[in-house]
């Protein structure tokens, strides 16, 4: 095996939680296949992140640290990642299923002529090749795939793989940053990060989600209050998004985001199959709905059959009392 390379995503000098998950999974695969784990860091000031990366088991850390890379550049980052693949002769390249990871994964795969397995939720080393599991039809089914070729690119679904600290050699190598115009065909001209204190849906360990039963956009304050008590993200069903109550970025389901938090609290969501597809892999599901026949109760671990406008505030009070 020619080694494993993980692209560790960061923004604004902060490593993403899913980057640590990818490094940890890379470490486990490197151990199972008896190969080395390299990690690639690209950005401005990323040299300061190497200690953090080493603590998750990286053998070698390749850094492209340049002020010109402060703003994400799809072509530039893809070029530098491709350079790193060549330097390391890595056979398995792991990224995260994020906006950046999906884009770079596809660019890289096309550049090196490798298959791309997106959104994997399981990876195992089977004597001499990689076997992965990934959801298709929005999680209504899973595919198990064997990698036959010498190299493959995969993106890991956030919140699925464990991030665990493990000592690695963490030796550092600087990458030469030489980009030409052909690497700058796509320009990110503005990045606007929300100042929300709430976590991103796909990264959140708790999600409180509201559906048609919310009755209107003005009622989401009770969902937001409960979310803030848990430090949770706020989600919505397609019905709520199509009604214009919540932005599409909040939509969970087959035509929205697929999430797998530790706890998913569905409030006033009936549980249409396309919604279940996006959240059924959550570790624990709570359903609050006044209709005892709602399909959401079939996949919920815990349910309360009652009006959400009574239950959600009560849940918030109880959570505050118990958690603080």
């Amino acid at each position, binding site marked *: 095996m020619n080694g494993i390379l993980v692209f560790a995503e960061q923004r604004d000098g902060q490593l993403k939680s899913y980057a640590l998950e990818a490094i940890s999974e890379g470490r486990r695969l490197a151990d199972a296949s008896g190969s080395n784990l390299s990690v690639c860091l690209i950005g401005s000031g990323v040299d300061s992140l190497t200690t953090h990366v080493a603590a998750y088991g990286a053998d070698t850390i390749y850094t492209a640290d340049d002020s010109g890379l402060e703003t994400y550049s*799809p*072509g530039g980052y893809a070029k530098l990642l491709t350079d790193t693949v060549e330097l390391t002769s890595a056979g398995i390249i792991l990224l995260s299923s*994020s*906006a*950046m990871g999906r*884009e770079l994964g*596809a*660019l890289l795969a*096309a*550049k090196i002529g490798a*298959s791309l397995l*997106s959104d994997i939720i399981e990876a195992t080393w089977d004597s001499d090749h990689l076997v992965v599991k990934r*959801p*298709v*039809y*929005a999680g*209504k*089914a899973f*595919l*198990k*795939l*064997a*990698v*036959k*070729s010498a*190299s*493959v690119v995969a993106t890991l679904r956030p919140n699925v793989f464990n991030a665990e600290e493990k000592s690695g050699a963490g030796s550092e190598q600087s990458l030469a940053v030489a980009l030409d115009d052909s690497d700058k*065909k*796509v320009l*990110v*001209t503005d*990045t*606007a*990060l*929300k100042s929300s204190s709430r976590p991103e849906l796909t990264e959140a360990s*708790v999600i409180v989600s509201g559906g048609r039963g919310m009755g209107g956009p003005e009622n989401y304050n009770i969902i937001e209050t409960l979310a803030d008590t848990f430090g949770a993200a706020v989600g919505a069903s397609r019905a709520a998004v199509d009604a214009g109550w919540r932005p*599409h*970025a909040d*939509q969970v*389901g087959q*035509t929205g985001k*697929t999430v797998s938090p530790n*706890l998913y609290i569905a409030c006033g969501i009936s549980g249409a*199959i396309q919604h279940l597809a996006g959240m059924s892999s959550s*570790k624990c599901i709570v*359903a609050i709905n006044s209709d*005892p026949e709602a399909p959401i*109760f079939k*996949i*919920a*671990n*815990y349910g*309360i059959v*009652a009006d959400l406008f009574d*239950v959600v505030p*009560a*849940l918030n*009070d*109880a959570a505050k009392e118990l*958690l603080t």
Partner: protein
Amino acid sequence: MKIVVCVKQVPDTEAKIVIGGDGLSIDSADVKYVINPYDEYAVEEALRLKEAAGEGEVIVLSLGGEEAQPAMRTAMAMGADSGILLKVENAALADGLSIAKALADEIKTLDVDIILAGKMAIDGYGHQVATMLGELLGMPVLPTAKSLEIADGKATIIRDIEGGKETVQANTPCVVTAEKGLNDPRYPALKGIMQAKRKPLEVKDISLSDAGVEILEMSYPPKKPEGRIVGEGPEAAAELIKLLRDEAQVI
């Protein structure tokens, strides 16, 4: 202005998925198929670009079996001018790079100004073909656009990223993929549906290059243990919180 829109025929979002006898793919017998919802945004955007330009041609490109034709006819009923079907068998979950290569080979023969596609297909969930296609053609790619403006030979999109938004720009010709919110697709009018039947649809038999991965099996998601109803009123809230902390240990 020549615009190519890539579309795919996929099971409806409400479809129940049943694994077929081969254990590797779904049983399509009772499944209702529709045009991939994200591709519908791409078709709508192509039509709007053509309308805004006051001239042009929208070509629908698909790769799949004969069953891909209804999605193409839907796009034509919306207003696309013609279609090209790259015909292969068992394309539903084929390797993304193989598909991108085949599409690129076809598009190379057309002198296009812009290529539009959905950000992903809701069957395979690959999120990759259009981005690979751009890279293979040497064209810039602007994925997951929630808005698109084309002016002075430049395409500018806004897309969601984790925790915010990005504005991204490239010269045309380029590839743009559509996210929900890009537009509100029109419904085909009866007249459009009738006209679509007579629009040219060329079918070309092709074969895909070998994939580097092999499907071993398709399976259902693991069954969840039976859940329980904690209560039927707000008084159950305290009990639920205790269960989440002590039993499920998720808070």
